[in-house]
């Protein structure tokens, strides 16, 4: 985000209706809300799987890689959107090609490869920027986002890509969850674990590319990780967790846009701040609840003279 004057001509009226109407009277704000919503829904859904699969590092890399993609596209005179997607999807395939044996050591192997890809990609991005020359202004946009310059065409593109990714997630979701949590049994039951893992990386690449266009390559996590991680702190139920991740993401996007509209600070800062606050709140809340539940359980156990496993303890209340 480059420095800009406060967007609102007047300060907030502190009347939600008036303030909202004032914002939505501006077309670029409407587009910002549209794009923010699309991206938050997509990021919440895919991010939930990503956090569960412990692939946040891969997600971050795919987002970072969209930067050289976009920079190259601008340098070559192609649309930046195409560059974002190309960069992330190619990187997703590279990461997916790394053989991933079943043992635990594979994960560190994977992160070493991902780290290598990430560093190289960033360096390429710097190269493309310098080759293009004199677009130092938009480099901040590529890295830190440009919520406020979203065109109608871009909104349509974002919506279409998000619809495709979400449809694929809907089809793959259940086996993907199975393969994520319980890889060996899923494989024994005929779930194509390896193919799903590749497919998910490509979906993650598309999502990262999409979100980077709004939050910038470096702040993708604000929407991709924070809402999903917060949701998983709150609930261990898969469907509720997914819904919460989406809800959190949309709420963060809307609130940040509104706050940014009336403040001189960049949207990316607000998105990250609200996402962070949400996560801290959720994690803190969980610690408190867990402690209390443990107390209750201990009391319950003392009260009941139980046989092994058969008793219904108060700890059975849904998590």
């Amino acid at each position, binding site marked *: 985000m480059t420095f800009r004057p406060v967007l609102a001509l007047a300060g907030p009226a502190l009347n939600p209706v008036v303030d909202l109407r004032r914002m939505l009277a501006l077309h670029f704000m409407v587009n910002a809300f549209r794009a923010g919503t699309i991206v938050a829904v997509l990021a919440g859904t895919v991010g939930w799987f990503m956090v569960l699969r412990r692939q946040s590092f891969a997600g971050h890399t795919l987002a970072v890689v969209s930067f050289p993609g976009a920079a190259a596209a601008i340098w070559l005179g192609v649309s930046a959107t195409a560059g974002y997607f190309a960069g992330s999807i190619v990187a997703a395939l590279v990461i997916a090609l790394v053989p991933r044996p079943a043992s635990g050591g594979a994960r560190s192997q994977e992160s070493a490869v991902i780290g290598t890809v990430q560093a190289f990609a960033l360096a390429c991005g710097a190269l493309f920027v310098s080759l293009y020359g004199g677009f130092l202004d938009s480099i901040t946009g590529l890295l830190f986002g440009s919520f406020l310059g979203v065109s109608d065409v871009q909104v349509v593109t974002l919506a279409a890509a998000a619809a495709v990714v979400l449809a694929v997630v809907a089809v793959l979701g259940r086996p993907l969850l199975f393969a994520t949590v319980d890889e060996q049994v899923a494989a024994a039951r005929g779930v194509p674990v390896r193919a799903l893992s590749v497919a998910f990386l490509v979906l993650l690449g598309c999502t990262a590319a999409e979100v980077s266009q709004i939050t910038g390559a470096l702040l993708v996590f604000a929407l991709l990780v924070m809402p999903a991680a917060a949701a998983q702190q709150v609930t261990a*139920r898969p469907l509720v967790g997914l819904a919460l991740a989406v809800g959190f993401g949309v709420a963060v996007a809307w609130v940040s846009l509104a706050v940014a509209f009336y403040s001189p600070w960049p949207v990316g800062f607000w998105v990250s701040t609200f996402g962070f606050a949400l996560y801290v709140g959720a994690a803190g809340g969980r610690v408190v609840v867990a402690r209390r539940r443990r107390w209750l359980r201990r009391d319950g156990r003392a009260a009941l003279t139980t046989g092994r496993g058969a008793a219904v303890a108060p700890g059975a209340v849904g998590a």
Partner: protein
Amino acid sequence: MAEVPIPAGPGGPPAVRLVDASVRQGGRGVWSHVDLVVEPGTFIAVLGPNGSGKSTLVKAILGVVPLSGGRIEVFGRPPGAVGRDIGYLPQRRSFESGLRVRGVDIVRMGADGDRWGLPLPWGPGRRARDARVEEVIELVGATAYASRPIGEMSGGEQQRLLIAQSLIQRPRLLLLDEPLDSLDLPNQAAVASLIAEISRAAGITVLIVAHDVNPIASAIDGVVYVARGRAVSGTPDEVVTSETLSALYGTPIEVLTTNDGRRVVVGQPDAASHHAGPHDHGHDLDHDHGHDLDLLDHLDHLDHHDHHDHHDHDHDHGHDHDHDHDLDHGQHP
């Protein structure tokens, strides 16, 4: 190598049949020319030292590991074609403590986790499925904690839920890969008798890979002993004997029976097995000479956990074993 002379079950094809089956992995033979028949409804223990290919045997029956020779039939069909008729519990599966998925969700995945598409709340069969989930959770005595995140449960609690998951499809064959591993002694006994009771009641054939025959000794009808690239099967009385095991290992092995009927297998480390380095793969079947020691002190471990600890450490430090497989003597109680 002999076929299991176990009293035939209710007829029909055997639950599992291996005919001259061999598996090679990474260019090395894991085991070869194995013949085995498991009759339906029997409870069979798969025993043997670490790295001898017990898990590979289970995976071959599942159809996940291909054979390099011979064939396998599961209920008269090729492996892999059986799908939902097999309940599978892989080796040493523990969930990260941070995994925020409930136990009940893990069990439910056993029912329909392999289906594509969205699980619709009003979808057909949903009520029946939920009832079945509840039923198996109750069967394993996990009702009290099934709705907690699986990562927060103890090993024994996780294992019960995983058994529930493997039972949910009403499988005809259960393949359990070291289900008692990583459990403390009381839990080992409890889980073992749970598996035995459930499978007896439902007439399920069970193949259970075990480290120690004793916790399951009262339940088993037969034993498959895998070692040195070969497998011997029969009743426990036939297989877990000095003669059979000595022949299998090609080294003197002694099986002692304690007053309470527990079997103790004692192996004498043979000097002849030391001269080859641990990385010598020249022998096809015995793919890691270091294992000679492993398997011998493993045999000690079949029972004598408490008495042979020092023994064990001597081996571990004195000879640089190449443990590509899990050697977890430290975990023995």
